């Protein structure tokens, strides 16, 4: 029996990062534009890079992105995930898709991602702790995956669950948060073209400390919405719980849209420190993606739905 394994070495992996950086950003922008993907010009510009008028937003370095992580399953210090996730097993990996869908199944990771072409997306990343980065992710728009599962009209929300593996995740042996980590999105948020299921970083396989093998990225929301090491995707009709809201409902909501107007009790949300830069900068509404996503929340009180 011939089993085709995914290519272990991608061309980008043997390209020096420095050269790759400029070339890749160009290719990504060109690729998105040329492929004629069904996205508006506004989406394309959001993917290609942050809007003009601000200081040049260069992606953070590999070291910054992989050395400074909030991933409490591997410890609460920013350096813990890089230090403690080395032996985390991301293969074999199964993602259970269930709930209000026509095609519930347990998908092998390889089968789940095989039908799609990986896309490069340079996104701003804003942590609720008032620091931020610019990160060149690689992944699959969640909207395309969702199509394949054929959700029923009654499916209004998507809930995601992180793997529960206390033997491999030292943080899960402590009751810092209720485990396993869960997150959720409204269906229109989940299927928004900017929402990405991430499998790679800088064109390389996603490192464990960044949420390998599969994590969520919703660039207009605070980083904690980007659930890591996803092992289950459920389609439901009621707003699902999310871990930080369960842990501290006064401080964290379901929507968690980046909003400089609504302060967190601990951290200001009006400004942020871009990792690698000395001066703080103003935080933008919806993390600078307002043109693409503001309409999702038309008429909603964002102060109440924080």
């Amino acid at each position, binding site marked *: 029996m011939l089993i085709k394994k995914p290519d272990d070495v991608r061309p980008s992996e043997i390209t020096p990062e420095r050269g790759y950086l400029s070339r890749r950003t160009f290719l990504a922008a060109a690729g998105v534009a040329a492929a004629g993907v069904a996205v508006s010009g506004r989406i394309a510009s959001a993917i290609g890079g942050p809007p003009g008028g601000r200081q040049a937003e260069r992606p*953070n370095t590999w070291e910054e992105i992989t*050395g400074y992580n909030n991933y409490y399953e591997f410890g609460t210090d*920013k350096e813990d995930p890089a230090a403690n996730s080395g032996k985390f097993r991301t293969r074999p990996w199964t993602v259970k898709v269930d709930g209000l869908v026509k095609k519930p199944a347990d998908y092998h990771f390889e089968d789940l991602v095989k039908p799609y072409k990986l896309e490069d997306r340079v996104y701003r990343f804003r942590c609720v702790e008032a*620091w931020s980065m610019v990160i060149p992710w690689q992944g699959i728009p969640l909207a395309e995956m969702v199509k394949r599962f054929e959700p029923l009209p009654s499916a209004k929300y998507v809930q995601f669950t992180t793997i529960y593996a206390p033997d491999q995740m030292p943080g899960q042996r402590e009751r*810092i948060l209720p485990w396993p980590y869960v997150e959720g999105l409204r269906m229109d948020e989940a299927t928004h073209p900017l929402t990405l299921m991430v499998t790679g970083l800088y064109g390389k396989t996603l490192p464990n400390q960044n949420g390998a093998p599969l994590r969520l990225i919703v660039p207009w929301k605070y980083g904690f919405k980007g659930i890591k090491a996803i092992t289950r995707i459920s389609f439901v009709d009621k707003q699902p719980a999310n871990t930080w809201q369960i842990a501290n409902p006064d401080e964290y909501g379901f929507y968690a849209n980046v909003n400089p107007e609504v302060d967190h009790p601990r951290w200001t949300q*009006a400004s942020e420190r871009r990792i690698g830069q000395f001066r*703080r900068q103003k935080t933008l509404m919806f993390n600078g993606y307002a043109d693409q996503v503001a309409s999702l929340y038309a008429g909603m009180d964002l102060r109440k739905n924080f």
Partner: protein
Amino acid sequence: MRSRGRGRVGWGKIALFSLCLVPLAYIAWKFATDRLGANPIRELEIETGLWTLRLLAVTLAATPVRRTFGWNWITKYRRVLGLFTFFYASVHLSMWVGVDWFFAWGDMGEEIVKHKYILIGMTTWLIMVPLAITSTTGWVRRLGKRWTALHRLVYAAAITGTVHYLWAVKKDTFFPVVYLAVFAMLLAYRVIAARRRSHRASTPRSAASVAA
């Protein structure tokens, strides 16, 4: 050990001075050699804040240690320890003002009003200011008994300082609680010791009244 004449700095103090500067030198070295991780400004704040609490604990431990072991020589080092605590608190605050916020006074004002952990941190530093000012021998003499009363504020600073730490952390409150427990024990020691002393002081009188 015999005490030396006033104005002269003994080897003990020089050693203590150097020792108290070691954490700062270590932090500075880590900063200079890029060992503070991806967000060094945040690390500078955390490290200088933690050393403030550690030195405060050492300062407050001086008296219990002196009484327990009879090490009376410790007394003359207490002021140095206290002033270094204030020094680290001031470095911590300077990091916030001059590095983190880069003198954006308006934004900092908002931070103080909006975020209670900032407010209580600022309060802690302000409590320490009069203690540092009145730490000189002249002020000790001038204030007399009131000096002791004033300097009890150091326990208020210990508590507000630790609450500042507790409120600043997101979820893992283990270490803030440890610091809180340490300060609670040090405070309990002083309360119990003071009560015993006042009890001893009042005993002869009550004995006399019984006799009469």
